[in-house]
């Protein structure tokens, strides 16, 4: 029920979890991992991990906010919320009646929008009436569902479901929770059912919930505001420039019909991977899973072509003047995850950012003592398409974003001019191995990672194979990639500068901390 904001920390976690891998464990995983492609195109993966009588699953849909239609940003995430609203049998007892009532809501909403969005000659009186008609239609439709509010979630929770949630990001949408293992068949029914016959009930109230989510994560949070503006600036053509949560005008416009159309287009079996990890035997579980998920009708694979971002040829900058403490962020365009250099970028991120031996920690936090935290990471805002490798730093009191830029650039220059040491290269490769091992000890983490790799490479084994690629990274690769990527005309900069609040209010920081008039 959340969209993944490209928060700096979560990207790092994601990088660590997903990108690094280990070859030697592949053989053992081959033995207890079973993949089946159903006739309708759906891919099922079952990974046997008999540690406790539970299992976790991820349903990975290879469509995210990049697929939002023009003028309807936020729709992928909106549908994700709707996938918790039940089905024709869960959430109502009279679907025929509800269906007719929901159709009236859509008709009334279309009439309201047509008047609201008239470029000229809008009739305010008429608009008011149309709005009332729409609200009345909603009230009628709600009668069919209100007694069964959140029935889908109530079933899952009552049956012992743990951690029920979902997320939408630029590249994909994923649904997940865990169950005691005796609920496997119940799960297969519930999870397939919601992707066979989802019902767009209570859509416009849920839209308000999503708008509150936007207020929480973006509008009322300075880092959220910066990331939205920064990403918009860095991408001129590719849909990565639009926010996953959606622009407010789009959130106030798209309809339940739009959400249903999005589902029809992108939630097709050949675009989905379902992964189960836990105390299950593939020989017994696969027929159960297949029985229920085979019911999803086959549909043509959607067209997912997008614009290719053209090369950037001049530095871009966004500066936000905020009542909050400063922050420095910069990003450089890089190729997508299929690039032969993908693991070189991973290696650079690890070298620059991982732990107290990392170059940015040692330079900015330990030696210069100008930042409380600094790191570089890849995958902003996604990685399925060409995206950004980014660096950030939080200046400590008395220091400015411009100092962060200078210190980060000095470290980048070092990367371009000098080979990294043997010890550093060995450390990167050892850590990649250890990080993968640590990530294998959780049903949930494994289900996510296997699903992601299956969706991206059409082979879950890539989770393990990427370790071979990171093992082949050389010092020369790192210098070459740094020189190709980290150049000023390929850079977008995002800065939060402190600005005092309007007069008559308490400043959020003490007097003298961020004095006025100190700027250039």
């Amino acid at each position, binding site marked *: 029920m959340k969209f993944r904001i490209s928060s700096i920390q979560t990207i790092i976690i994601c990088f660590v979890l997903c990108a690094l891998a280990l070859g030697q464990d592949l053989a053992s995983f081959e033995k207890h991992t079973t993949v089946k492609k159903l006739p309708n195109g759906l891919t099922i993966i079952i990974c046997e991990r008999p540690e406790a009588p539970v299992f976790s699953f991820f349903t990975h849909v290879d469509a995210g906010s990049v697929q939002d239609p023009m003028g309807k940003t936020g729709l992928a995430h909106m549908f994700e919320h709707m996938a918790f609203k039940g089905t024709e049998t869960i959430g109502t007892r009279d679907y025929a009646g509800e269906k007719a009532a929901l159709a009236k809501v859509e008709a009334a909403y279309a009439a309201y929008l047509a008047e609201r969005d008239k470029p000229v000659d809008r009739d305010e009186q008429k608009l008011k009436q149309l709005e009332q008609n729409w609200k009345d239609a909603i009230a009628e439709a709600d009668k069919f569902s209100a007694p069964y509010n959140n029935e889908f979630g*109530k079933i899952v929770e009552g049956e012992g479901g743990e951690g029920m949630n979902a997320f939408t990001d630029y590249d994909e949408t994923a649904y997940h929770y865990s169950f005691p293992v005796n609920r496997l068949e119940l799960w297969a029914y519930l999870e397939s059912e919601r992707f066979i016959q989802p019902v767009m009930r209570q859509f416009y109230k849920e839209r308000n919930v999503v708008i509150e989510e936007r207020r929480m994560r973006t509008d009322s949070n300075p880092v959220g505001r910066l990331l939205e503006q920064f990403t918009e600036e860095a991408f001129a053509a590719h849909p990565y420039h639009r926010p996953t949560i959606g622009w407010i005008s789009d959130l106030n416009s798209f309809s339940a019909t739009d959400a249903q159309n999005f589902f029809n287009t992108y939630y097709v079996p050949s675009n989905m991977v379902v992964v189960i990890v836990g105390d299950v035997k593939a020989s017994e579980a696969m027929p159960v899973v297949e029985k229920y998920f085979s019911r999803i009708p086959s549909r043509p694979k959607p067209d997912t072509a997008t614009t290719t971002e053209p090369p950037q040829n001049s530095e871009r900058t966004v500066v936000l003047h905020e009542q909050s403490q400063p922050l420095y962020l910069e990003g450089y365009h890089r190729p997508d995850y299929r690039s032969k250099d993908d693991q070189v970028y991973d290696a650079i991120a690890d070298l620059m950012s991982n732990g107290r031996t990392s170059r940015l920690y040692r330079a900015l936090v330990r030696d210069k003592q100008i930042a409380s935290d600094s790191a570089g990471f890849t995958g902003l805002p996604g990685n399925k398409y060409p995206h950004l490798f980014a660096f950030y730093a939080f200046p*400590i009191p008395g220091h400015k974003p411009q100092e962060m830029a200078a210190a980060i650039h000095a470290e980048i220059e070092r990367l371009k001019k000098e080979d990294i040491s043997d*010890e550093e290269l060995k450390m990167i490769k050892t850590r990649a191995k250890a990080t993968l091992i640590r990530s294998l000890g959780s049903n949930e983490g494994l289900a996510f990672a296997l699903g992601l790799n299956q969706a991206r490479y059409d082979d879950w084994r890539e989770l393990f194979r990427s370790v071979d690629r990171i093992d082949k990274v050389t010092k020369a690769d790192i210098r070459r990639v740094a020189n190709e990527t980290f150049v000023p005309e390929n850079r977008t900069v995002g800065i939060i500068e402190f600005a005092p609040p309007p007069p008559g209010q308490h400043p959020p920081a003490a007097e003298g901390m961020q004095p006025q008039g100190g700027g250039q």
Partner: protein
Amino acid sequence: MKLNRSLSSGFAVILLVGLCSSALQLSAQAQSQTQTWQQIPIPKLPEFRPQQPKRIQLPNGMVIFLQEDHELPIIDGTARIRGGETSVPAKAVGLTDVYGEVWRTGGTKTQNGDQLDDYLEQRAAKVETGGGVDSTTASFSCLKEDFDDVFRVFVDVLRNPEFRPDKIEIAQKGLYDGISRRNDDPAQVAGREAAKLAYGASSPYARTPEYATVAAITRQDLIDWHSKYVHPNNIIFGIVGDFDSAKMEARLREAFGSWPKGQKAADPEIKIEPAKPAYYEVDKTDVNQSNIQMVAPGITRKSPDYFATSVFNEAFGGGFSSRLFGDIRTTKGLAYAVGGGIGAGWDHPGMLRLMVSTKSKTTYESIQALDEEIADLNKRPIDDEEIKRAKDSILNSFVFRFDSPEKVLQEKMAYEFYGYPLDFLENFQKGIEKVTKQDVARVAAKYLHRDQMAVLVVGHVSEFDKPLSSLGPVKKLDITIPAPPPGLVPEQAEHE
């Protein structure tokens, strides 16, 4: 898991559908529509007895839990040491934050922190330390093959820290940064101020470091803290991973057995002084959403009401199934984040808290919505269906409390630390089973008193739908950060 017979024949019909005629398709659709989730068989959950860690106590008082887990070639250990921020005097708030960082970064007598960093990172291993409310911790994580190397460093850090001054300065600067940023995120402001209202502004459970308290911390304070608290008889040590318990036990006895006992950590006396019931307002002009929290002190897990409040919380303010979620989010569309309940702490009352985040212009409306939910508990008590679902939810998901050896270990360590019976979790299940509708109504009436709660609102005050003063007395909270002592923070001009 066994397939139910009638359903597996249904499977055959559905499979045919994909291949054959539309007539079959229709009949199969009819069949799939008549099936409901209640018809799906739920076999008995296989008997599961999670492996229990072995508990030993050394003659010097140190308690050790050993938990074997051979799934992955990893060994992790954590020492939890009695004594934490609740034992720190008001003038040095933040002491365990600085201590918790510099204990490790400041290195040992023979190796400085940077040398430790290099040594450990070459092995993709960690040794880390940290401060906390009632304890401090030292922990390690390593690949099995590196255990000897890493455990040696861990013991050295535990026994022989040096607290080098350069790292104290870095830790202090990091804390100054945190202080300077603490009003930037409204959710953080709300969490912090709500704790002050529930426990009292100067309570160790609520107070926060200031520039002056952090600046006053010296190296000698860290040395004194270490020699006061880090003794085997104040330590609970848990180790989990790919080892043989008998060999590991011998190894640990050798490492810790000769460590002499020290002074036992005293339990601090802590008073809880909740704020007077009123509306407390923090004005933040750079937000368009209000963070609303209604708070009062809650209970401890030792309370006989713990089980009934757990069921109440699940039904009233827990997940998707709860009243607050259903009414305020789903039906009214007022919030994305809404929830709450009667919090239960281990050794001190948790926080009773109901919270909702809503747009500025529905602030008043949302407070009223919460009020209605509380009032409604009298008129429309949590009913049989809600009780059943809440209990089912807790009991059916119970297995997730111990579905990994590490979780079992952590539970046992917590019981040991707070003096709970080690079979507390097993009894929790029985306690929940016994809860009745009357129990839930009784605890709701006992703990949820709207007129005794402090209501915090962090938001853009001039944009509220109605002023809070239309609800009751309002106190404006000043969250201005006290200025640092002169000279502590460099003037910006120096850098331009």
